[in-house]
């Protein structure tokens, strides 16, 4: 019986530092499950890792077609890593379409495990190959990669055949066979997967027979690797040198849920999460709907607009109102966010960015909503804008968003993206005790003798008192019409309006007092600063490391706070001759830097429906440093 202690019959595993594996197959083939389980196993082995699930917008595109291919990439290492990897060392291709759409991402010499039984005439034709030209036999490809045809479907069919299960149930275990094979290849234990299968199918669904069938497939995959000697050697990746502590695996959307929930508890307030389903933000709604025991109420609204309005209503009534969406939904929420600016109520708006405009590429990441977040409202309507840098960073960013929204009584937009939302990494569990409570006070007494002025400001934060319905004596009206300073009465006076425009801007800027100074990393004496924001942090860190290692030292810094910028950003920019701003948009942060600081920043801009690859970033930065673009 295979387990982690099994000694292979052939060579001992070869130690390698760093591996990326991609499982690719039909969107119904269970690639996300196989990849996710491989990641879980990898985490337990102690590697650092980063994952990248890449799935089509179509739920079940026609089987075998290239547009129905779903992939899950796991990058794991004995070193610290920050990205899912530019290229893959092992591709598992469950069919010709998966082979076709993913082969270009395999590094030269990389291993391709392909289910050869799927490469018949029909499968080839569906993938757009000539029916008589099998790419597994292509000599050019064979020279470039180590293509390993595996009779995967046949073995699963034959090995798992029993009287109790039909062909359909048996063939659904193909992904688990592939997982077993890759576990063998990288010397990963099977127990975590066996436990998971027993739990998922046996305990939760009462189908121990299905769990057993999958476990047989898992072992069959392992045994096939061990006996078939198709690959020859095996590999092992030693544990990474991570900081001591307790770790878990976390995706960005999971971390967002935990962060918002933790923030509500730290504020000791109920939270209302109102949202409308939209890819790739829906998982946050799903997650929040399971947080009811933490005094979280979820509301699936009739549309994006109703969602943000309900969140604002909830804030007015004394809950922490939060709404979540993606770019197109943020556009719909614009008017209501403007109202929240006017009402000066706390509101958190999560935007899990995806490729746009319009429906764009719903499952693909892009950082192209920054300017929408900054300016996508009528009138002068400044809000605080934060961006999470990695899956686990969503936790801290969510807490900060709630903290700032309630401190300054204003909307806070949190930008995430499809890559960090769905991607996962190890997360050293935070010390919850060390997270400062979020101090919120609701006035219960008038603030000017006998009179309550709803728009009397706190001199430090610029915020107004958050008096909530149910409080006797503080009855007041809020609304979208311009407010008279202090009293909050409707006022069309020009001078008052100008003062209020300034006041609403000033309180956003007042957040600078609690925004930490910029941390400049890398070679701080370099004349070049690489400045990034949001989900591209990992790729920028790795690119900066590579450049430094190659003799081109650069400094790097990363912004979580896009509005207001950290107070010292202007000074930091002025310290460098050259500021390079990589973004997966056409230069939105660069636009803001130029407008704010007259900083002649240089952009490295890629918009290919994925996060930055480290190599393209290294090349882009190098070109920028050479004065080319």
């Amino acid at each position: 019986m295979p387990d982690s202690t099994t000694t292979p019959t052939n060579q001992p595993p070869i130690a390698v530092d760093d591996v990326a594996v991609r499982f690719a197959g039909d969107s119904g083939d269970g690639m996300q499950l196989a990849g996710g389980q491989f990641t879980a196993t990898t985490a337990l082995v102690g590697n650092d890792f980063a994952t990248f699930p890449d799935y089509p917008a179509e739920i079940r595109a026609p089987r075998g077609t290239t547009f129905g291919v779903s992939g899950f990439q796991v990058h794991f290492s004995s070193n610290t890593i920050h990205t899912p990897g530019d290229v893959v060392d092992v591709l598992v291709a469950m069919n010709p379409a998966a082979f076709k759409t993913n082969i270009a991402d395999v590094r030269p010499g990389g291993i391709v495990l392909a289910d050869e039984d799927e490469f018949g005439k029909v499968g080839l034709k569906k993938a757009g190959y000539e029916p008589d030209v099998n790419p597994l036999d292509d000599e050019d490809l064979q020279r470039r990669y180590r293509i390993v045809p595996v009779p995967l479907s046949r073995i699963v069919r034959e090995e798992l055949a029993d009287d109790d299960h039909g062909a359909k149930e048996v063939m659904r275990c193909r992904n688990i066979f592939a997982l077993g094979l890759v576990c063998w290849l990288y010397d990963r234990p099977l127990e975590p997967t066996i436990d998971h299968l027993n739990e998922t199918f046996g305990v939760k669904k009462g189908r121990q027979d299905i769990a057993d069938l999958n476990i047989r497939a898992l072992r069959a995959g392992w045994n096939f690797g061990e006996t078939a000697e198709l690959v020859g050697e095996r590999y092992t990746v030693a544990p990474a040198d991570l900081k001591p502590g307790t770790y878990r695996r976390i995706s960005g959307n999971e971390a967002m849920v935990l962060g918002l929930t933790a923030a509500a508890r730290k504020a000791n307030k109920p939270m209302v999460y109102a949202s409308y389903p939209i890819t790739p933000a829906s998982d946050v709604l799903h997650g929040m709907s399971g947080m009811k025991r933490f005094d979280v109420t979820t509301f699936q609204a009739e549309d994006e607009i109703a969602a943000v309005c309900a969140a604002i209503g909830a804030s007015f009534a004394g809950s922490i109102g939060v709404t979540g969406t993606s770019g197109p939904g943020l556009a719909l929420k614009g008017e209501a966010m403007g109202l929240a600016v006017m009402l000066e109520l706390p509101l958190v708006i999560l935007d899990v960015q995806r490729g746009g405009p319009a429906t764009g590429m719903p499952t693909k990441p892009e950082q192209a909503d920054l300017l929408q977040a900054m300016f996508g409202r009528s009138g002068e309507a400044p809000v605080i804008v934060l961006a999470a840098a990695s899956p686990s960073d969503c936790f801290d960013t969510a807490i900060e968003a709630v903290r700032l929204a309630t401190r300054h009584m204003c909307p806070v937009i949190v930008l995430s993206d499809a890559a960090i939302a769905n991607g996962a990494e190890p997360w050293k569990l935070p010390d919850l005790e060390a997270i400062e409570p979020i101090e919120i006070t609701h006035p219960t007494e008038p603030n000017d003798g006998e009179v309550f002025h709803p728009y009397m400001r706190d001199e430090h934060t610029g915020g107004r008192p958050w008096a909530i319905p149910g409080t006797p004596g503080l009855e007041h009206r809020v609304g979208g019409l311009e407010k008279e300073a202090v009293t909050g009465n409707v006022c069309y006076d020009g001078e008052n309006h100008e003062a209020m425009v300034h006041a609403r801007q000033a309180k956003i800027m007042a957040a600078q007092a609690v925004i930490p100074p910029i941390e400049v990393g890398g070679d701080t004496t370099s004349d070049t600063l690489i400045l990034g924001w949001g989900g591209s942090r990992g790729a920028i860190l790795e690119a900066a490391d590579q450049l430094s290692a190659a003799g081109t030292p650069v400094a790097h810094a990363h912004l979580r706070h896009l509005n207001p910028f950290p107070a010292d950003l202007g000074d930091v920019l002025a310290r460098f001759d050259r500021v390079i701003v990589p973004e997966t948009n056409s230069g939105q942060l660069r636009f803001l830097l130029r407008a704010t600081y007259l900083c002649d920043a240089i952009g490295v801009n890629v918009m290919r429906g994925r996060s930055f690859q480290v190599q393209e970033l290294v090349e882009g930065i190098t070109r920028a440093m050479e004065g080319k673009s």
Partner: protein
Amino acid sequence: MTTLKAKDYTTDQDVRWCPGCGDYAVLAAVRKALPVIGGAKENQVFVSGIGCAARFPYYMETYGMHSIHGRAPAFATGIKLANPQLDVWLVSGDGDLLSIGGNHTMHAMRRNVGIRILLLNNRIYGLTKGQYSPTSEVGKITKSTPMGSIDEPVMPLALALAAECSFVARCLDIDAKPLGAIMERAAGHAGTAFVEVLQDCNIFNHQAWFHASQKDTRPANTLQLVHGDPMIFGVDSERCIIRSQDGLGVANVADVDAADIVVHDETNRTQAFELATMRYPDFPEPLGVLYVNADRPMYEAACEDQVARAKADRPADLQALVHGPETWQVT
């Protein structure tokens, strides 16, 4: 507790409606009705959208929110989710709640959120200075319909019933007493209470409902619904509603058996729908409470219940939550 008076609900803000606007009558009626209804002022919240009627909250000495166009039901829903104990009144116009906000109105009703909606229906866009509204009649000449409106008007009562609204009523702006009585019943209703108020806009749609609202027109052209009473109207109570093969019809009392006169049953949704689709001049305008269903669960109560059950089911252990299902140690 001291007894509140209408003036206790009056803010220090100048009311800025046009002289003669029907909104004044409704405002006066609401200020008068609230002390009768009772409840603490601090627990009352008036929410509105955009339009003339939507200025309402500024004039009510309660908590209030003048929101954005059409979305008042969504704000009100959020308020109720956060604090189900609040008395939430929503006051807005026909353009706001039936045109731009039709979606939210419908969804608040089908969820049965415990809010009271006063829809002030003057069949015109007043604040934008006189365009036809979703309740304007076909052929209506307005600034945007110089050759007459070609849009079939929305029937607000029918829309409310179709959306499963659990309390549907209608009254006239100038009828302070019936309006107060209906508000009282609405306030006691657990769920969405919808009250259509037929209202005049003396600037852009003067005499909008004069066929039903004037002393000399009202008896002949309105049907005052009373639960359990036969549907009789007319100057001398000489007209009645009967049921024929084609549905409801109008007849002379003298021409029919008393037993054939339809009796109002406010729990009968099908009959309420028939009343809601009656159109003047073939029919009188129905006034009063058309329909009540006290048995539908309230949305915010169901929501609270789920939260309570979740709390009873598992402790709110943040440490365990963050810990997740699977962890590993790095030493």
